[in-house]
């Protein structure tokens, strides 16, 4: 099967997933015990008024017709209106999305170089004290609650030393960098250990491979072998992992946004959940899933372009 065919198959594979996430996001609201119309109308609405609005929104139709209506609206980019803000959910999401994307990009800029440095150090000195120290850092980084780390960093670097603001997003690009440093750092401290463990393991695996022994027997210097052969061959599994992690990052940023009051998708999500804003929860859940699918797809295609041996 040629590469183009493989990519085409991968795209066809998306169809059931896309249908699935649409169904799940639809059922999420339909199966919930609350009544969105009643919430939207407030406590003082009469039964007649509620019935009229219910009919207007199509909530009195059979379930499959409601689903058809939902899909029809989705295809036109209509996610319904927010019950709380009374504006279209799609606009609300697109309005705050850049902030979350900025945060995610920032985290990657911090995490990727740090991961490479730590993993290379650990693998080249495997079993020695520096490897042990990095391992301890990894284990601790994975068990510490991100939100707690956020609160603690905010107190120390924000309130004590006053180096960074403890909340908000800022106006200009530089202010964004300044405001989002602590949120990005808190997330990176949680993300880096996972990546380091993975990259270190695949570096060690490659270092024991036959082609390394062959290069060594030719008399090539260790540093050259490491850079030219080992590092390049270890990059792919970690790229794959990074794709999984970016998907995780989108979800993981929710709690960090709350701690640092960053008005992004996460804050919107929590606000909607606490305020029972059903349409926003539904729209955001769908949006998050689409973003995840897109990231995974990109990484898969990128992997097969970089290394033809990778099967999709």
């Amino acid at each position, binding site marked *: 099967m040629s590469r183009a065919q493989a990519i085409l198959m991968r795209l066809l594979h998306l169809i059931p997933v896309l249908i699935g996430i649409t169904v799940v996001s639809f059922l999420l609201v339909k199966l919930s015990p609350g009544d969105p119309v009643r919430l939207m109308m407030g406590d003082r609405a009469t039964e007649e008024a509620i019935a009229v609005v219910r009919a207007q929104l199509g909530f009195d139709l059979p379930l499959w017709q409601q689903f058809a209506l939902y899909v029809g609206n989705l295809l036109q980019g209509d996610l319904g209106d927010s019950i709380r803000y009374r504006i279209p959910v799609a606009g609300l999401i697109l309005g705050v999305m850049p902030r979350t994307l900025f945060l995610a990009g920032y985290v990657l800029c911090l995490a990727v170089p740090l991961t490479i440095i730590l993993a290379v150090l650990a693998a080249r000195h495997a079993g020695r004290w520096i490897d042990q120290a990095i391992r301890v850092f990894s284990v601790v980084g994975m068990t510490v*609650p*991100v939100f*707690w780390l956020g609160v603690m960093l905010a107190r120390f670097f924000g309130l004590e030393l006053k180096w960074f603001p403890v909340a908000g997003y800022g106006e200009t690009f530089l202010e964004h960098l300044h405001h989002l440093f602590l949120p990005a750092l808190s997330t990176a401290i949680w993300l880096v250990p996972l990546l380091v463990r993975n990259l270190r393991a695949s570096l060690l695996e490659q270092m024991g491979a036959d082609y390394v022994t062959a290069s060594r027997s030719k008399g090539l210097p260790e540093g050259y072998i490491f850079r030219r052969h080992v590092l390049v061959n270890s990059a792919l599994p970690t790229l794959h992992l990074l794709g999984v992690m970016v998907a995780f990052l989108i979800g*993981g940023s929710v709690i960090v946004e709350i701690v640092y009051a960053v008005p992004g998708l996460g804050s919107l999500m929590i606000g909607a959940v*606490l305020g029972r804003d059903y349409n926003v929860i539904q729209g955001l859940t769908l949006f998050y899933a689409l973003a995840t699918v897109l990231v995974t797809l990109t990484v898969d295609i990128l992997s097969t372009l970089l290394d033809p041996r990778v099967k999709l």
Partner: protein
Amino acid sequence: MTALPAEFVPVSRKGRRTLEIGLGCGILAAWLVIALAADWLAPADPDAIDLMAVLQPPGMDHWLGTDQLGRDILTRIMHGARVDIAMSVFGVLPAMLIGVIVGLVSGYFGGWVDSLLMRLVDITVAFPFFVLVIAIVGMLGPGLANFFLALALVGWVSYARLIRSEVLVLRDAEFVLAARGLGYQPAYILLRHVLPNAMAPIAVYAMSDAVMVMLAGASLGFIGLGVQPPTAEWGAMIADGQPFIAMAWWICLFPGLAAASLGLGFLLLSDGLAARWISK
């Protein structure tokens, strides 16, 4: 923050790792004792409000200080251990049970059953774990029961994938072929011959999953969607302390350390067992 995909079952060099496993078991056992005996060990009543002693720093009267309502932090951490341990155990077990059944059936029978179940897996992993948990809890309402329900609905996926890949190998093993040749029922073969041989990676993954589930539960508590006040829970305690962080750091600090140490226990055990059982 999130349950990890199955790729994360740690792979490390073979070794007995007695120190790691012992330390992990020790930490977990200590927390279990604290949680079970909180009523007798704790110096105070977890919900006793004492407005004469609000925001007291750590000292002789209150070893870890008091919160904004004068409640003893040490006592609340001990009682909170009950909730946080319960979250990690009961958040993992139902998901594991569902995942194991799905994985066994899917891997052993193959065919359209397998395709159908794996499409279901694809759809579930398309949602970021924490977002889906929040969405489900948000729709059903806050509280522990809904948290467990959400985790069972979302968390089974990794177990199903993990056990399916084991079953695909074991399906053609000689002892399985022999059992089939002797005419045993598929259910008997799966439970008696396949499952015991596929259990090690599941147990190892469940331990590291427990860390992530506990952190997810504490995160929900922090947001206000988990255990409802006044019940003591570590994440909710940290949220309580956040407004007072400038003057009373101890309200936040100690519950966070408690959560990290419980997670450390699970992770050490998971790592140690991985090296002992499934290293290459």
